[in-house]
């Protein structure tokens, strides 16, 4: 009741401020005020996790607003899963503070769990139980009213295209179907916040596409989604905002468009050499003046910034001096991949590639 009162008070305060500022014609400030008073679904401050000597999550602070899809993007081992595990109560932070839907962690995690759905990186339902029995078990565990348990389970089975297989054992399902049912099970209690840890990892391209469509539909229903992924195109496609995580630290938080704008103001040229140039990266970089080079692999490099004619001259000279042919050279429309490369300095090779998936959105011109 106290929580409801405080919520109402904050909403009223936000409405008043917006009206007041709008009268003064300062719409931009009003938007900032809405943002400020919007209830954070997740709030963390200096959240830290160590496993022995390894600092898995390094003092990260971020806010996820209600109704948004917030992406946690980073290579394997960057601390994405460790962060989720702390936020859902499966491990304890060493330092820092966090709250979910206004509930303080870890003290109020059990209360928070009533409103939170979680899909971890493994499809962890019971092989021995049927699809329907798995959903009913979860409904009972979360205290879904008895008269609603079956109807919700049936509806989810229909929504996820599994109704025809409702009596089949979970253990007999394909990987994509297991993933879909695991997400359905996380929705049975109608959560306000959904954690999805690498939801499409291991799925074929068709199953991954279908799942992404499903995630988009969940957002349309007003669900807040915290999504971890190492697929750049997935983050670009689904997320309202993205936090880029490298070695346990958040290095950047922005919208996908905002991240791409970081590299859109500069020229971007990609060269493919006829053979491995990894031993000559220092030489190439010295020739580029103020421009930055990011190696996609041992023979491909993207060059950010600088004057394009001068860059072409420098690289062709490098090619001649070292006797290495250039197979292709093209200017690129920046994608999230380029923004990621620019921000982290990491090759996207470390992010892994999607089975059957295509390239990022940024096509060649």
């Amino acid at each position: 009741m106290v929580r409801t009162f405080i919520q109402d008070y904050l909403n009223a305060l936000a409405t008043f401020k917006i009206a007041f500022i709008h009268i003064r014609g300062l719409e931009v400030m009003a938007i900032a005020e809405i943002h400020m008073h919007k209830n954070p679904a997740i709030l963390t401050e200096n959240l830290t996790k160590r496993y022995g000597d390894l600092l898995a999550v390094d003092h990260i602070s971020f806010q996820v607003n209600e109704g948004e899809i917030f992406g946690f993007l980073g290579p394997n081992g960057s601390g994405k899963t460790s962060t989720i595990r702390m936020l859902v109560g499966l491990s304890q932070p060493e330092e820092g503070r966090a709250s979910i839907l206004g509930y303080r962690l870890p003290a109020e995690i059990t209360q928070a769990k009533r409103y939170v759905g979680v899909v971890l990186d493994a499809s962890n339902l019971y092989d021995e139980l049927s699809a329907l029995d798995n959903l009913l078990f979860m409904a009972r565990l979360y205290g879904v009213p008895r008269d609603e348990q079956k109807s919700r389970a049936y509806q989810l089975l229909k929504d996820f295209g599994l109704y025809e297989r409702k009596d089949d054992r979970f253990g007999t399902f394909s990987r994509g179907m297991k993933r879909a049912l695991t997400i359905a099970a996380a929705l049975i209690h109608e959560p306000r916040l959904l954690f999805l840890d690498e939801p499409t990892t291991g799925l074929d391209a068709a199953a991954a596409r279908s799942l992404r469509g499903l995630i988009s539909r969940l957002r349309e229903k007003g669900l807040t989604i915290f999504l971890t992924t190492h697929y750049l195109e997935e983050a670009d496609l689904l997320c309202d905002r993205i936090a880029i995580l490298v070695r346990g630290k958040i290095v950047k938080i922005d919208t996908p468009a905002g991240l791409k704008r970081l590299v859109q103001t500069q020229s971007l040229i990609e060269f493919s050499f006829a053979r491995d140039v990894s031993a000559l990266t220092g030489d190439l970089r010295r020739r580029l003046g103020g421009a930055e080079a990011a190696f996609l692999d041992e023979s491909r490099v993207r060059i950010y910034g600088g004057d394009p004619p001068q860059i072409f001259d420098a690289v062709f000279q490098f090619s001649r001096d070292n006797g290495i042919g250039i197979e292709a050279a093209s200017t690129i429309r920046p994608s999230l991949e380029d923004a990621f490369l620019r921000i982290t300095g990491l090759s996207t090779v470390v992010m892994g590639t999607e089975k059957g998936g295509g390239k990022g959105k940024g096509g060649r011109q």
Partner: protein
Amino acid sequence: MWQDQLRGIYYIALKDMKTYYLKPPAISWGMVFPLAWTLAFYLRSPGDFAELVPGLLAMTILFSTTAAEAVVINFELRLGTLERLLLAPVSITSVLLGKVLGGFLFGLLMTAIVAAASILYLGLQPDIIGLALIAVPSLMVFSSMGALFSVSVKEVFEAQTLLNLPRFFMVFLCGVVYPVSALPEGLQLLARLLPLTYTVQGLQASFFAGRDSMLLQNLLVLLVFLILFLLPAIKLLHRRFE
């Protein structure tokens, strides 16, 4: 809040019954093994079979509760389904209690069947309340013991293998077949440290001596064993999620 926990314990226990216990491996360990063991002694000396009934029930209690309990927690930890349970509004303690309750309920079912069959077949007239006062805490003790072994090790088979040692020790030392008083003094002392001794003594009292002070004494000792098994099991499971 406590309703969430009670509901969680109840549904986890029911799910475990359906998923693990009411299956051929658990039933064979829980019922067929003690019955086969007892049958062997019956064939040797059919006239004394009534005297073997408390021991038969004690073995049923021991094997039915620990048959799957020792593996289910580790099994679920490996599959990730235990984590799935912890994502619900259920505490780690409640998850463990749900698992222990699952073993308890299965043990209760097996023990009730064996007890009813023995009593009816042999025309015995035990003190039913005394029998329940010993059987119920014993089922909790051995289910908790199975849980403790399960959370103490990492591999599923390790728990089962490790548990065989105390289980067979107890079958020989705790008066199931031979009276504790007939054992050498050192082994008698060892028998006093094992919970099945008090289960057998309590059951013997409920079958043949009526409700006396020994029954209460055995009940109290069993409750101490319950705490000794349950609290470390809870603590060890908590440690897995630190």
